[in-house]
Structure formats: C-alpha cells, structure tokens
C-alpha cells in the first residue's frame, strides 16, 4: 500500500511539475509573441485605426490592401532579391572564413595568438557609426560604391561568429585530433570531416544569426548605395516613416513580409539544432 501511495504521489508531483513548466512556457510565449501579434493585426488596420488611442488590441478591420499598397510603394521585388542575394552570399562566405579562423584560435598554437584575438574582440567594441565615414571613403576609392561588392565583401567576416565558434571548437576534446593525426588525417581534412560535423548546431547558429544580420542591415546599405535597385528590404521599411509621423499600417504590412523569409529559415533550421550530436556517433 505504502509503495502504491508514494507511486501515486510521484505521478501527481510529476504532473504538477509538468503543468508548471507548461504554464511558464505559455506565459513566456505570450510575452514574446505580443509585438508580433500587434504587428500582424496592425498590418490589416485602416490608417485611423492604426493610430488609435486607446490602442485596439483586437482587430476589427481586415484591410489586406495594405500589403499591396506597401509592396507597390517601392521596388520591393528588387529589395527582396538583393536581401536574399546579400544574405546568402555573406552567410556562405562568413561560415567559411569563420570556420577557418575559429579553428586557428581554438586548436592551433601560433605566434601572437592572445593579442590577435584580443584585437579581434576589440573591433566589436567600436560603435559602428564612427566607422561609416572612413568606410564610405574607402568604398568610393575602391570604386565599389553602388555595387554588390560594397554590400558583400566587407561583411564576409564576423568577429562575433569567430568567437562563438571558437567556444564550441574548444569543447571538442583534443584527443580526437591526436587520434586523427595517428590515422594520417591532415589538419584541413580533420577540420572539415570531423570538427565541422561535430559542431553542426553551432555552425547553424552562426549561419542563422549571420543571415538575419545581413537581412536586417540597413544603415550600411543606405550609405553605400544610391540606386533603388541596389537596396534591401529594411531600406524599404524606412520609407514609411517621416519626421512627423509614420504610416504604421503599411509599415507593419511590409514588416510582416520582411520577416517571413527569416521565420521560414528558422523553422527549417530548427531541426539542425535538435539533431545536435545525436547523429555523429564519434564520441
């Protein structure tokens, strides 16, 4: 009897615990989803409703024309193409440069390692605004102004990514490297056939964050280009604001369109996070 009761108690406690987890999760999701919900409903409001105070949390209108009007307000077709092009090329390029550099910092001994890493980290500490003017001049001198090179090449490296990946690479035991060396596996091959597959979740994180960063980059694109067909989606979002007010309903419609690709990408790559090490089987 005693045993049964404790068993029941255990089950009840487990249930209460799980319930608590769900409540926590639901509350968290609600807080996180609120702005998104607002964005979505506002994108269907009329101009007057969008500016209304007290705010209208529950939608009344369903004005899907906002999406058409927003789309037609600027060459959004080009913006999307450029955003995709820029995000994809910079992500692929950055993953490559990052893997190489992070591996060097994580697993190699070399002259000046500490200082070079500190200087690299140091670059993250400079407010970007200060670098814009000299960079504008450099881009002009290189003849890249208003060209794809200006949007892509400077963004092929991210110190953030190198640092993140270095942290993951360092968690991979050194014994693996030694074992591989005995098997006659070169450094380069070891990196791409063993380290990279082992660090898949991390590499996907780096790639995802890079893609998003590129997708959202705004100030740089605005300053380094001038032709409408060279610009990206966030520049399009800017078009709905002026210094005296904002066309919120169109802005929100455009914002929804802007995050759909990222959302899709995230839903797609989530699987990669979950799989993690389960499939590598090396450890």
């Amino acid at each position, binding site marked *: 009897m005693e045993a049964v009761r404790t068993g029941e108690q255990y089950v009840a406690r487990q249930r209460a615990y799980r319930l608590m987890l769900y409540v926590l999760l639901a509350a968290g999701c609600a807080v996180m989803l609120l702005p998104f919900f607002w964005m979505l409903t506002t994108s269907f409001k009329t101009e007057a409703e969008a500016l209304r105070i007290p705010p209208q949390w529950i939608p009344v209108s369903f004005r899907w024309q906002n999406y058409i009007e927003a789309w037609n307000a600027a060459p959004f077709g080009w913006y999307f193409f450029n955003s995709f092009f820029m995000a994809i090329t910079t992500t692929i390029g950055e993953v490559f440069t990052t893997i190489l550099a992070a591996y060097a910092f994580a697993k190699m001994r070399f002259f000046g390692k500490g200082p070079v890493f500190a200087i690299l980290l140091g670059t993250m500490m400079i407010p970007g605004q200060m670098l814009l003017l000299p960079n504008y001049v450099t881009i*002009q001198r290189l003849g890249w102004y208003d060209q794809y090179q200006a949007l892509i090449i400077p963004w092929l490296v991210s110190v953030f990514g190198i640092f993140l990946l270095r942290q993951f690479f360092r968690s991979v035991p050194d014994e693996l490297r030694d074992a591989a060396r005995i098997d006659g596996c070169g450094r380069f091959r070891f990196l791409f056939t063993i380290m990279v597959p082992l660090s898949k979740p991390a590499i996907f994180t780096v790639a995802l964050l890079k893609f998003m960063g590129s997708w959202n980059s705004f100030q740089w694109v605005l*300053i380094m280009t001038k032709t409408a067909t060279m610009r990206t989606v966030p520049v399009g979002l*800017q078009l709905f*604001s002026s210094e005296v007010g904002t066309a919120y309903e169109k802005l929100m419609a455009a914002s929804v369109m802007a995050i759909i690709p990222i959302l899709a990408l995230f839903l797609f790559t989530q699987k990669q996070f979950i799989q993690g090490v389960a499939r590598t089987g090396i450890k």
Partner: protein
Amino acid sequence: MKLRNTWIALGLLALLFVGFAATATEPVTIEFWHRFSERHNDTLLELAARFQERYPHITVEWVYQGSYSALQTTINGAVVAGEVPTMTIFYENWIPAVADALVPLEPFFTAEEIADIVPGLLYENLLTVPFNKSIMVLYYIEDYVPVPPTTWQEFYDLCVANTVDEDGDGQIDRYGTGLRPASNPEQFLALLAQNNGTILNEDWTEVTLDNEAGLEALEFYASLAPYAWITSEYLNSNIGYVAMAIDTSAGWYYWNKAAEGAGLTVKTAELPVGEKAASFIQGTNIGLFKDVPAEEFAAGLLFLKFLLEAENTGYWAARSGYLPVTLGGLQSQTWLDHLATHPEAVASSIMMPLGVSQITHPNYGDMRDVLSTMCEEILLGAETLEDALAVAVSEIESLLE
C-alpha cells in the same frame, strides 16, 4: 567696393551659365539627394517631369538617402571623398560643417527673386534656398476646445480648464497642452519670437535670452508645466491626451488620421498673439555643390529656380502638406485652390510670412541642445527657472567664440 565687384562678376558669370544651360542640348542628369517618405514619391516625380517638359535635355534623378543620420553621414562622406551630387537637401544645422563645399547662390538670383522668398527663410548669401518647410501652428481638439484661443491668457485659461481627471482616480487623464522640451524646444522659441525676444543680438556678440522679453516668455512657458503633458513622444500619436498643442503644420496628416481613429475632431488655428504675431519655421533647404561639372551645376540651378516658381512651390506644398516658400507661392492659384478645400492649411499659410527660422550661427546646434536642457529642467522642476536660465546663458556665451 572690391566685394561688390566680385559679386557683379559672379553675377555675369551666372547669367552666362544659365543661358548656357537653358540653350544647351547636351543631355545632363542632375542628382538630387533627399529623405522624403514614399508618400511624396509621386509629387517629386511629377515635379521632375514638369521640369523636363521645359528643359528636355535635363533629367532629374531623385536619390533617397534615408534616415536623418544616414543622409548626414553620406553628405559628409561625399564631400570628403569628392563624390558629391549636384544638390541635396540639408537640415539647417548641417550646413555650417560643409559650407565651404557649397556655392553661395546670391549672385545667381535677381533682387526680385530674392525679395520673393519668404523673409524668414533667407539664408546668408543664399548658401542654400528653402525647400520643405512647415511652421508651428495651434492644433486643437474641437470636442474639448470649441473656440481656439486668440491670446496667451486665453490659451493658459483653457489649459487649466482642460487638465482633468475624468474618472476621479486622482490621476490626470487629459492635459491642457503638450510640451516637448527635449525634442522640440521650438515651442518655446515660438513664444520667444512672439515676445520680441531672441537668443542672440543682431551681430551675435551677446546673449539676449535673459533680457526682459526672454524672461517673460520663459516664465509663461514654465507656468504651463502643471497643465501640460511633458514628454518627448509625438503628440499626434497620443491623440485625445492633450486638448491643444503648439505643433508643426507638417504633422496635420497624422493628427487628422489619429483623430479620425479616436472619433475626435482636430482643427488648426493661428497661434495666439503676444507682443506680435510670429511663429517658428522648420524644415530643409537645398544646396548646390561646388565640385561638379559646370553644366551640371547650371542645370541644378535651373531646377532650383524652377522649384521656387510660384506655381511649383505651391504645387509641392499642396501635395506634400508643407508650405510654399515664396510669397508668390503663397498667392499662387494652385495654393489658393488648395486652401479652399483644405481649411487646416489656412492658419499656417497666414503665419508663414511672419515666421522666423533658426539663426545660422555655426554653433546653433549646440545652442539648441543647451535650450532643450534648460526647458526640460525647468518644466520637470529639476532646476529653478533662474538657475537654469543663468547656466544656459553662460553656456551659450561660451559658444559665441
């Protein structure tokens, strides 16, 4: 004497330029940088099209340069790199930093043309000419304020009467007016202008902010504090929260939409009148760069003059919600037709010739910062009026150089 000769020589040269540009047939493209939202796209394109009808060989290319700081950085970068556009819009604060890269346009304009520009908008040597301008007017919610005030005493009384706690919970639900000391010290500057006050004397050698006129204006401004919502938010995105406000005429579109959403009626009126009728003008100017080919400069000059023509500035204003920048424009048929159907624009149109702009002192940007801080400290009670004013005066003095 020497200077005058230079001007005359430049003027002759200018006529030559213009004649050359008007008769030339080599195609020219002028690049015009701006930061107008997509709402103004069609109007800008229409202006360029009309211009090209007259000068088929000149194409105007509008280039959107985005946010405030992006445009500023791009202009500075372009000057440093020597890759300037034909022309760009400027906020007046930005002009001193690149003044040496701009062409003073005075020699290229006739006396009549200069006299036609709204007096409050003339920039020294015509280094830039006005383009999109708006002026402080009175917005009032008719549901709360049926008849707009005409004197500042009336304004004050209405503020007191409209600061109410509707549900009796001890917290104010609606204020008489809204003041934005940090983001919009121009509300105070409008009051200052009305009281015949100025920040500096004529030749910028002395601070006059603390003379009698200035003190009086500041005291009135401070007396509004208990009846004002003190914020840095846009007043039009908090419709119904204030009964009246001194705000820029350019915001009408958003005020009106917000009022519609809230089921209220918003109207505009001229500012109440103090010692004299006056108000404060804000907006952008256009400047032409030195470092461009002669035919491009000449074409840009033609376009500039085109934009100042009565019908064109009237058309731009009617379509954009800004104001005509010339006296002729204020009387143009297009603008008068617009006023007939848009009563909200009447107050601003009447006030425009009485408006003043910010002074063109190279350190005005810093002075404005000092004024903002002063206004905010007084309204929020962080400093007494006397102390804040004394600090502001000494800081502005140190900016005179």
